[in-house]
């Protein structure tokens, strides 16, 4: 026990940090243990109801199969991560996964930036002119009903046409645009709600100061929108990663984690642990994306009173 009183709070903070890490590790371990326990106890061929004897593929599988092809041991997946990606002298799977994850993260980040820019502009326009809100908001909501796998190839085709006409349009730009399509939505809605969050009395105060639109926006509305905006940005980050992965798969772009997942899934019979590599990679990707956005929040601590949970 130190006699220096100044070191006490710092140590407590550090202790809390370690506790958070501990809980995180415990959570992951718990999932791994549950996986292994079910694999040990569950029937190898799963539980099927309504199967007809002698008819392949009949019935409904209600509990998953537990054999090694369907559920490899956790340690097999980890060992596979250290083995060569494609046999021979190829780099370990974990390296290939990391490279693919960085690629996808880059496209998701670009998609996030586009989405945030578009979402903010929409939010600002809708707050400024009620008519725009009435006209646009329903369409913004409807836009999210369009399935991404239907929308992605359209973006890709348009991108290819632009590319052929002479303006370079690489495939990763299509992926970023598709990712931004998912990312802009929470930002637009969050920005609108945030910008409209100030109390009437505060708006009136600004008006009594004869403050114009811009000073009201900068001094009142934007600071007040932070508690609504931060969760929206986090959601946008998660959506951008999801959008990038789905976009890669549906337009068949190679190099990223989504496409890698599909490619390894095709080898899942003889090498069942391999597809789990990119799966872990995409989980890490989502955490990194959400975590990076959380960093923005640290710079805005004083505006974060009453932040809504996302």
């Amino acid at each position, binding site marked *: 026990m130190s006699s220096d009183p100044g070191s006490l709070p710092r140590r407590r903070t550090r202790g809390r940090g370690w506790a958070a890490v501990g809980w995180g590790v415990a959570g992951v371990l718990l999932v791994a243990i549950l996986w292994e326990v079910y694999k040990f106890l569950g029937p190898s061929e799963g539980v099927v109801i309504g199967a007809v004897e002698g008819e392949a*593929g009949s019935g409904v599988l209600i509990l998953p199969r537990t054999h090694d092809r369907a559920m490899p041991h956790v340690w097999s997946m980890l060992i596979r991560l250290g083995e060569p990606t*494609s046999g021979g002298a190829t780099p370990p799977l974990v390296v290939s996964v990391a490279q693919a994850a960085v690629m996808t993260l880059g496209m998701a980040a670009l998609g996030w930036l586009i989405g945030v820019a578009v979402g903010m502009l929409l939010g600002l326009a809708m707050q400024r002119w009620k008519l725009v809100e009435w006209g646009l908001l329903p369409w913004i909501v409807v836009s999210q009903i369009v399935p991404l796998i239907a929308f992605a190839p359209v973006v890709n085709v348009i991108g290819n046409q632009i590319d*052929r006409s002479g303006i370079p349009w690489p495939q990763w730009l299509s992926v970023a645009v598709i990712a931004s399509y998912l990312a802009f939505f929470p930002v637009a809605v969050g920005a609108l709600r945030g910008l409209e969050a100030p109390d009437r009395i505060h708006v009136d105060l600004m008006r009594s100061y004869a403050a114009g639109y811009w000073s009201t926006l900068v001094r009142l509305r934007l600071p007040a929108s932070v508690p609504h905006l931060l969760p929206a940005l986090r959601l946008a980050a998660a959506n951008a990663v999801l959008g990038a992965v789905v976009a890669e798969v549906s337009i068949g772009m190679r190099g990223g984690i989504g496409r890698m997942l599909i490619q390894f899934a*095709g080898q899942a019979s*003889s090498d069942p642990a391999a597809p789990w590599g990119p799966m872990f990679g995409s989980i890490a990707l989502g955490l990194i994306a959400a975590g990076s956005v959380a960093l923005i929040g640290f710079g805005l601590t004083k505006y974060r009173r009453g932040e809504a949970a996302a």
Partner: protein
Amino acid sequence: MRLRTRRGLALASAATVTALALAACSGTSDDGDADSGDFEPLTSIKLQLQWLPQAQFAGYYVALDQGYFEEEGFDSVEIVPSGGDIVPQDALVAGDVDFAIAWVPKVLGSIEASGVELTDIAQVFQASGTTQVSWAGDGITSVADFEGKRIGSWGFGNEWEIFAAMAAEGLDSTSVSITNQDFSMNALLDRDVDAAQAMTYNELAQVLETVNPDTGELYTMDDLDVIYYEDTEGAMLQDAIWADTERLDDPAYADAAVRFLKATVKGWLYARDNPEEAADIVYTAATAPGVDAFPVGPTHQLWQMNEVNKLIWTGGDFGVIDEAAWQKTVAGALAAINQQGLHLIESDPPASAYSNDYIQQALDALAEDGVDASGTYTPIEVTLTEGGQ
């Protein structure tokens, strides 16, 4: 004013096009001139594959690696893989590439559906590599046994041989349950289907690279019944080299086609005589940084090389389209009806859909150089390993 400029431009371009067309016509009618180099030879071409780099495309990668393309006067040959994002015949029609590898029935479908003009200038695979794999003892040893069974199929235009073979047995999707299958063999291994579609050079090997939990050893051919579509009425021609029919009137393109085929024949000859080295060349190309093909490991590639060679070297001259096999493919494509009740094609393809002129020129030129591109392949013994690593 502006309108007049635009109209003038349109007139000028129309005139240019006409002049070019006339020039092209005169070029072809005068064969002697075309051969003596009346054109600027193409030195840079692109080849579109139908999938990612693997031993299925060994000949082209070998030609690249061994400098056969340079020997035929090409400074640069780019082999463009497809991860399913690029349809080879579409890329060829769009002018993104100069030649493309694609299955004959798929291109016949495109020709009829969108009226594009493409020509099969070399039939690389003379035999079909498609199979339907079931468990030994389940009694599915011929297409007729499909009746009332659950049969896996990939779709995406890979399914027509199944429907053509079924049509020949009087079966269709009302009497046989056709189920979509993914590219792993889990549907068969988990008995979700009675018989799964598999290429001899890929998915069949994947089963044989999987450990049988009952024995702790890899599955063997004794565990399986394999129906080879090549032996059925449904057999269709597969990997072929396609060219743009209209462009073939351009002597420079036609000349490039012949030179490209010469290099390709040499590449495949090398792959026939050195399967280990050829498999290694493809594997190296597929695992090069930035390719992101993530192929199955080296022993799988060697298996694939061995099986692909069997499909190419069936005794005749390399790449020459066999009239009977072509007609059989067309007949199957006309007869096949899929789950949606649709035909692949409803009328005969145009005569321009295949031509032996270019491969014959290539083979003749090679024969002059003392290269014999006929014969058969002596299969090697390939021992598969778990996961193909």
